[in-house]
């Protein structure tokens, strides 16, 4: 493999890994804040116990999320120095803002929340968890603004001397249609992820029969957040698809493996074949008009195929291959959508049980809900693959190709070594994270007077 391949693999691996923790952090952050708010308002002891219980899970995830975020920040300079040099003027600005305006907030108030239980007045302490949650959400906003610029560059002019993009309208970064929809989509996906985790843990505890009153409350909160979040997430996601279809038509055409232009266009549930060179895959169960609807919001909308787009780009940008990996596009889109439907069904099932007052006793639902926890990470990963792989071969759509962005001074061997180092390190961290998460998720709820007593640390 070349330095370019390895650098891309490294970025993909570390981003996917980082983004396993980010949505949990954001989603669970808000849910924990809601639990604490509930305790503050009602004084119900079980809500305080739940706050502390889920707070531990939250903090474990933040720890891994923060340190893996460092790798993301450094990597732009390490592996993608030509990219950093060219676009730092525009792309670096939201990153710097993220640190100043959001990350300081999240990290500082996390320390205050975790260690401030008996040093801060309850109202002030409640404010700290909300600031942690808001800080996390703000961080995501700045990062998404930067990322959306790579998908649909706005608010810049090209310096005639250097050919470099120069920021000329910072407001445009935050009104970028790809950003507005993409950010909302990420926030809803994060709430979904946090809610599914809370639901899964609560279901496990309900099945075991420990503190049923408390875990019924957390399961209910999770369900009430989960169902609207998934539904809105799907809605916003399809809007995002239309927006991207407008600015990155190749991405959307590849997601349906659509080589030729069609009107109206059908959506296939599955296909056989259809790799990079197979222009005629066997589509299975085609739903008429659905692709038109998804990609353009119109019943008879036209979707331009990859072949005409390819010739158009060759004329515009010169010879080259402008088709992203069709297999990844086609399947990541479907994995994301299909699994999201599954999550929604589980959520609706749970709501129905809640309505029928059978949530605490529905054994089968508990079993299913526990396993639902594996779905959001898969959905989130597929979503990012769809977005980022679909941007290829561009690192910034229409401005810089990915292969032009790599560091000229770094050797293949160096990247390979660091890839192995991070792979091993992340593998170890995964094991530790999973062990700790399951251990703490299965732990008994702390006694009601948890306020002044220590955390019961489990022993072997």
């Amino acid at each position: 493999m070349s330095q370019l391949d390895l650098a891309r693999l490294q970025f993909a691996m570390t981003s996917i890994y980082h983004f396993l923790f980010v949505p949990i952090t954001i989603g669970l952050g808000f849910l924990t804040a809601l639990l604490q708010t509930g305790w503050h308002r009602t004084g119900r002891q079980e809500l305080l116990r739940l706050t502390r219980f889920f707070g531990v899970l939250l903090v474990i995830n933040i720890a891994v999320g923060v340190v893996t975020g460092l790798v993301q920040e450094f990597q732009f300079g390490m592996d993608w120095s030509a990219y950093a040099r060219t676009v730092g003027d525009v792309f670096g600005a939201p990153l710097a803002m993220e640190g100043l305006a959001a990350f300081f907030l999240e990290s500082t108030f996390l320390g205050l929340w975790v260690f401030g239980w008996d040093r801060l007045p309850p109202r002030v302490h409640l404010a700290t968890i909300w600031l942690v949650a808001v800080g996390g959400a703000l961080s995501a906003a700045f990062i998404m603004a930067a990322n959306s610029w790579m998908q649909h560059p706005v608010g810049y002019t090209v310096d005639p001397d250097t050919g470099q993009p120069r920021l000329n309208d910072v407001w445009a970064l935050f009104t970028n249609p790809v950003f507005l929809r993409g950010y909302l989509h990420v926030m809803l996906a994060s709430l979904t992820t946090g809610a599914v985790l809370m639901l899964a843990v609560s279901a496990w505890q309900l099945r075991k029969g420990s503190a049923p009153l408390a875990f019924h409350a957390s399961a209910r909160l999770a369900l009430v957040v989960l169902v609207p979040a998934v539904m809105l997430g799907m809605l916003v996601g399809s809007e995002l698809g239309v927006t991207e279809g407008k600015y990155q038509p190749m991405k959307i055409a590849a997601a349906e493996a659509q080589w030729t232009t069609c009107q109206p266009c059908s959506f296939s549930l599955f296909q056989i074949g259809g790799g990079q060179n197979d222009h005629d895959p066997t589509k299975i169960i085609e739903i008429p008009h659905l692709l038109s609807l998804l990609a353009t919001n119109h019943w008879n909308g036209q979707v331009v195929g990859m072949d005409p787009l390819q010739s158009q780009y060759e004329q515009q940008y010169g010879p080259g291959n402008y088709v992203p990996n069709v297999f990844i596009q086609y399947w990541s889109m479907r994995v994301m959508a299909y699994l999201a439907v599954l999550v929604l069904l589980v959520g609706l099932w749970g709501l129905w049980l809640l309505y029928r007052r059978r949530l605490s006793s529905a054994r089968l639902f508990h079993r299913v809900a526990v396993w639902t926890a594996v779905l959001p990470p898969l959905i989130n990963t597929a979503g990012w693959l769809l977005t980022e792989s679909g941007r290829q071969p561009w690192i910034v759509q229409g401005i810089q190709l990915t292969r032009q962005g790599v560091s000229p001074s770094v050797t293949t061997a160096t990247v390979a070594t660091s890839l192995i180092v991070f792979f091993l390190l992340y593998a170890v961290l995964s094991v530790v994270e999973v062990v700790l998460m399951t251990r703490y998720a299965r732990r008994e709820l702390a006694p009601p007077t948890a306020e002044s007593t220590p955390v019961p640390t489990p022993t072997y």
Partner: protein
Amino acid sequence: MALATFWFILTAVLWTGFFILEGFDLGVGILHAVVGRDEPGRRAVISTIGPLWDGNEVWLIVAAASMFAAFPGWYATMFSGLYPAMVLLLVALILRGVSFEFREKVLAPHWRRAWTVCLSGGSLLVPLLIGIALGDLLYGLPIDQDQEFTGGLGDLFSAYSVFAGLTLAVLCVQHGATFITLKTTGELRGRASLLARRVAPVTALAVLAFLPWTHSTAGKGVLPNLVALIAALAVLAAAWLVTVRREGWAFTATTVAIATTVLAVFVDLYPRLMVSSTDPAYSLTVQNSASGGYALKVMSVVAIVFFPLVLAYQGWTWHVFRRRVSAEQYTVGGATGDAAG
């Protein structure tokens, strides 16, 4: 352009802030196993920085981000040129960062020992590596006319830059030992104070050697400028104050010492950002590496609004956690003060 210079100063301030704040928590990380001989002692020592370290580390993140945004060329050349050191730095930061959280979560001795090793080792590597990197900026690296690094691994470890790393590491140890003295009681405080007194002469010697070496490396003679003069006085004052057991003042002195030592490097660096050893004309400078005027203006507004705010709430955090801690709090039955649950 004045804004570019403003961002150079801000970047220098961010790195300085990082060393002031994370400096002591790195020191605490390095020393926690030695100062806290048993488990309650170690937990007590770690808890002195428990609420603070995460916020402190953001200074590093913002420092790097400000380089990216204000001086993309600097960020690109430095991070790709120092690639192997950066990988090691990230590994150290990751292991150290998760060890705070992971260490407390399982009681088994071998588990805690493993994370103690990660915490101490990682905390030592961070100032060492960043120190080497700062030294490299000033000492010079092979950089061609396209601002690309053309050297190899060996170029990163000049005698000067390695000494810069060692100086910053020992400063962190001193800063951390003084901080533990200030924040603990009983035996912990005694051991930390003893350590601070033992390390003080080494720190003083290192800084006193480092400052003229920095000047001569920068080609500015050996006579100290004002910043270097303050650094020299502060490091001597720190050594004296810790001997006469004035911990509060000693910590103030180590704060000034570590800040001015880092600043001294940046003062000598200006207006260059990275010296090219290939040809001084290829050096990266504030002028040839800065972002466009509009980007700098926007970020200046953001910095001017948010920076004071950050200082205010971080200062408030200090106030909230101003109490001393003792090992007794961490024996069985005492309050743990850790974790949310």
